[in-house]
């Protein structure tokens, strides 16, 4: 890795609550993501992986540490202008497409939201064309433009959410368990779509997941989180082939194996 990293996170801290009730959600997490790379964060529920994602995109203000994005420090207080600029380069896909789409807006308007906010069109026709072209790219039919979220299936809703994020042409996409709320049958489609879009558009991706088989298939490097700490990082082959931490071994061993006699921890299921 000789490239300059796109995102550098160092000693990130995040807490919930105050005083004695304070819960440490994220403690001293550091990692880097290079352009066009996929970095996966894995860990059990409550290990803080979603919190890391939400802190990087500044839904939550970081309580400590540094976040460098494209060479700029984005961990301090951001002005409205900086926030807007950041939102053009950093986008997020949420876990549950049932709740991440505004139920009272048409799919076309949901996707065009970013264009509206940043005034990226000069006419209504241009706006519509831009939305239709991205809808085609994510595999949504043209007539979906005028339909409401309640009229789509889960997989299609997630495609709308992907289109909404990608219309901004981000450099880094944070995918927070983008398929864990979907039917097993459509998961592969959405994952393939994400991979394809990432290749075509040269996007880096922070992929947050608990599905180890999926992570192995999609990511270049993997970080393992446990109780708010990042305990191990490495290339996907290293983490899955030669884990150095006992927790990582346990995590890999907890994957149900299709043929129990075959003791190789191949990771073919979920934690």
């Amino acid at each position, binding site marked *: 890795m000789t490239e300059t990293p796109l995102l550098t996170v160092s000693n990130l801290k995040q807490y919930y609550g105050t005083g004695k009730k304070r819960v440490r959600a994220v403690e001293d997490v550091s990692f880097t993501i290079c352009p066009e790379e996929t970095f996966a964060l894995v860990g059990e529920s409550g290990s803080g992986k979603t919190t890391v994602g939400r802190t990087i995109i500044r839904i939550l203000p970081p309580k400590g540490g540094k976040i460098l994005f494209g060479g700029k420090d984005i961990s301090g207080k951001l002005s409205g202008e900086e926030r807007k600029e950041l939102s053009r380069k950093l986008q997020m896909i*949420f876990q549950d497409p049932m*709740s991440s789409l*505004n139920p009272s*807006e048409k799919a076309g308007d949901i996707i065009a*939201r970013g264009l509206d*906010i940043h005034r990226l069109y000069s006419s209504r026709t241009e706006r519509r064309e831009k939305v239709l072209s991205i809808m085609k790219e994510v595999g949504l039919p043209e007539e979906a433009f005028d339909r409401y979220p309640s009229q789509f299936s889960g997989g299609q809703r997630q495609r709308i959410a992907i289109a909404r994020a990608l219309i901004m042409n981000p450099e880094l996409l944070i995918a927070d368990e983008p398929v864990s709320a979907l039917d097993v049958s459509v998961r592969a489609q959405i994952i393939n779509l994400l991979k394809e879009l990432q290749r075509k558009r040269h996007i880096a991706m922070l992929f947050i997941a608990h599905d180890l088989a999926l992570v192995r298939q999609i990511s270049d490097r993997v970080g393992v989180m446990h109780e708010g700490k990042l305990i191990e990082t490495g290339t996907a082959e290293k983490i899955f082939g030669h884990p150095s931490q006992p927790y990582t071994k346990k995590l890999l061993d907890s994957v149900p194996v299709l043929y129990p006699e075959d003791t190789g921890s191949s990771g073919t299921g979920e934690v």
Partner: protein
Amino acid sequence: MWSRFKRSRGAMAGLFCIALLSLFALIGPALSPYTYDEVSLSSQYLPPGAPSEEYPGHLHFWGTDELGRDLWTRVWMGTRISLYVALLSVLIDLTIGILYGVTAGYYGGAVDLILQRILEVIQGIPTIVIVTLLMLVLKPGLVSITVALVFAGWINLSLLVRAQVLKLKETEYVLASKTLGASDLSIIIRDILPNAAGQIVIMAMMSVPGAIFLEAYLSFLGLGIPDPMASLGSLINSGFKSMLLYPWLVLIPVIIFVLLVVSFNLAADGLRDALDVTLGTSEDR
């Protein structure tokens, strides 16, 4: 939205009734030769349809009251006042109520704390006290009713809006809009208010009967519309005194009053369903 509204028969009936009542409130008094305060001691308590003494060839469609005043004219004049009060209360709900509720709910924290304490103080003062105090500076009448409504009429709606905003601002689609760089105003207008619209409309429409009742109750106490002006409330109250002997004096204003309140409720129901796009697909409705 209109096409969805049209599909609800009850809502259309309600809307039609409101339109009809408004039309008669406008032109009704002009259809008879009498004015609402014209006293005629020779034609007291005439039954509906009785011929007029002063104006040969004309009828008292709905009879006359204890002073010989034409009930038809007085009922439609009263409907005007009730409609004014209804419109006013909806308007107050939709402006002050929404602004206050959204500010408290969206910004939360200290802002919410202060706004809610102010609201509790206002809520703690009975309307009757406010109106009585207003009489020190104002004559009883529409102005004092208007001021009383502006002062306290928006409280329930603002509480509802605040609760809705508190709930909706935590949704993931609001987070998604934030990550897209949306401003607070844009989030409130596009993500929060449309999803609370159904509840807001229902609540605003439900406050209509309450406001009409408030006017009637104030008129009864002599704090509302003063004689010889009429409102539906004051007509029902004075007709009530002679209900057994001259039933039309209470029946007719009551029927108009009930029609008014029921049709507002029906229209509100239909409007809520039309606004709620999540209830079902447009094809299967």
